[in-house]
């Protein structure tokens, strides 16, 4: 099979905040390929947000190298190329909307790139359509819910036609329905438009939906793998102060009590299927 193109490459990257004694992130190496949905999982202060900002050239690595879409982030002349190709959504939905009208905010990135006005209109329209926000094109941002604002922010990035989307805890400040909504939108973009996604989160259930998980703890990437692998090590995750999805932890408890459940259970459906396999229901019931 043909290898997919590398979108993001971290080579032993480190970053130390000004005045801090120890690095917030060190020795980080990872590769993200085209079309992947990669979750970066870590608790607060683990260095996952620092990692996100390295990917957008907002921070430059103090050691090592970060290459995004073929551009080394430390080369100043590539900064705008990198930011256009790797768009970023932030945690607070209120603090990333610039304009007073939704469609004008979506156009903000395009204005910065110097795209002519006639070309902007269709791009803004289709970006809003792909996050299902066309109806609100003329609304004021403060009239929208948190989830809707995040979708507007996503549209603002999409309009720039990026190949990578980095979401830095984009759902952390949303209510459950808004969270589901934003995650669904991004998953849809990943599947149907082939946009590579780096999803930074501390929610296990969200990370479980990714193709691959990078676990960050104390400024290091400590684990990497597909969700089933990563979460099967229940004890190891707990040692990192990270939880595993509820069903995985329930399955682990049951296994300890002697139930021969297989490894790698993530969702309610998984567990139900496994229990049914072990004790088949009589069709009479």
């Amino acid at each position, binding site marked *: 099979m043909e290898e997919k193109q590398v979108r993001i490459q971290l080579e032993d990257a480190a970053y130390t905040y000004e005045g801090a004694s120890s690095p917030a992130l060190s020795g980080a190496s990872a590769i993200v390929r085209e079309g992947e949905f990669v979750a970066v999982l870590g608790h607060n202060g683990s260095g996952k947000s620092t990692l996100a900002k390295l990917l957008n050239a*907002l921070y430059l690595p103090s050691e090592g190298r970060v290459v995004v879409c073929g551009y080394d982030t430390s080369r100043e002349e590539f900064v705008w190329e990198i930011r256009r190709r790797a*768009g970023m959504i932030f945690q607070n939905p209120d603090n990333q909307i610039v*304009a*007073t009208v939704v469609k004008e905010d979506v156009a903000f990135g395009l*204005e910065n790139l110097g795209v002519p*006005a006639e070309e902007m209109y269709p791009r803004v329209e289709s970006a809003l359509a792909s996050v299902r926000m066309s109806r609100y094109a003329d609304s004021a941002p403060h009239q929208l819910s948190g989830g809707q604002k995040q979708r507007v922010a996503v549209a*603002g990035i999409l309009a720039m036609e990026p190949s990578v989307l980095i979401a830095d805890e984009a759902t952390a400040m949303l209510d459950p329905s808004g969270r589901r909504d934003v995650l669904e939108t991004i998953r849809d973009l990943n599947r149907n438009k082939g946009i590579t996604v780096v999803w930074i989160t501390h929610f296990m259930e969200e990370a479980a939906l990714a193709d691959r998980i990078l676990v960050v703890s104390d400024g290091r990437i400590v684990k990497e793998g597909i969700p089933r692998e990563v979460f099967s090590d229940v004890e190891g995750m707990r040692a990192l102060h990270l939880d595993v999805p509820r069903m995985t932890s329930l399955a682990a408890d049951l296994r300890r009590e002697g139930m021969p459940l297989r490894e790698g259970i993530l969702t309610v459906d998984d567990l139900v299927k496994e229990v049914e396999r072990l004790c088949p229901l009589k069709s009479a019931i």
Partner: protein
Amino acid sequence: MLSDITMGQYFPVDSPIHRLDPRVKLILTLAFIVAVFLAHTAAGYVLLFGFIFLVSRLARIPFGMLLKGLRPLRLILILTFLLNLFFTPGETVLLHFWVITLTREALRQAAFYSLRLVFLVMGTSLLTLTTSPVSLSDALELLFSPLKKIHFPAHELAMMMTIALRFIPTLLDETDKIMKAQMARGADFESGNLVRRARSMVPLLVPLFVSAFRRAGDLAMAMESRCYHGGEGRTRFRVLRLTRADGLALAVMAALIGLIVLEGIFLT
């Protein structure tokens, strides 16, 4: 309690005046101010009043709203009128009572000076009532952009104005939230004398400022990550185009000024 603060005094209806290019409206307002100062005869003042009245009709703005705009100025208006009335030297005495002398010239001047103020306020209100703050900042940016050559920060000022407008409702919401949180813990914003009340504002303002600074930091980062790098090489989503109506409006204003100048020459 905070939700009734409206943004500026923009009166959002659709009218030919609302649809005029904001740059043109800004220039027309400046021209109108000049016209007000050019008028020196009763006929001139009638013309000015007629113009204001017609424009407010066309803009579908209730005339009462323009009058309301004069309210904050009522003291200055009364003072202007009285001072001019009693301290303007004149010959034709209309009334003489104790130390007060009322002359025809003084009456005329008092009336004209206060009317001039009234017209200035009404004329500029017509601009702000029919132009949204965002288009106004657009107009300012475009009109001042030639001054960029001498390093006048036209784009930066307009961007600041837009961001301020964008965050007014957000910060108002936040103020409301903080107030309620403080009130839930027994804070009292309503009673006591002025000093007490001012002091009770401190626990409200400190968190508000802290959060405003945090928001500013976040926003700056979000703007940078969306390739914002100042006004250079930037295109605009809202394109302003001059239409025939704009030309017509300019012509009407030119005619108004012309008439005022002419009758000033021939009627005095």
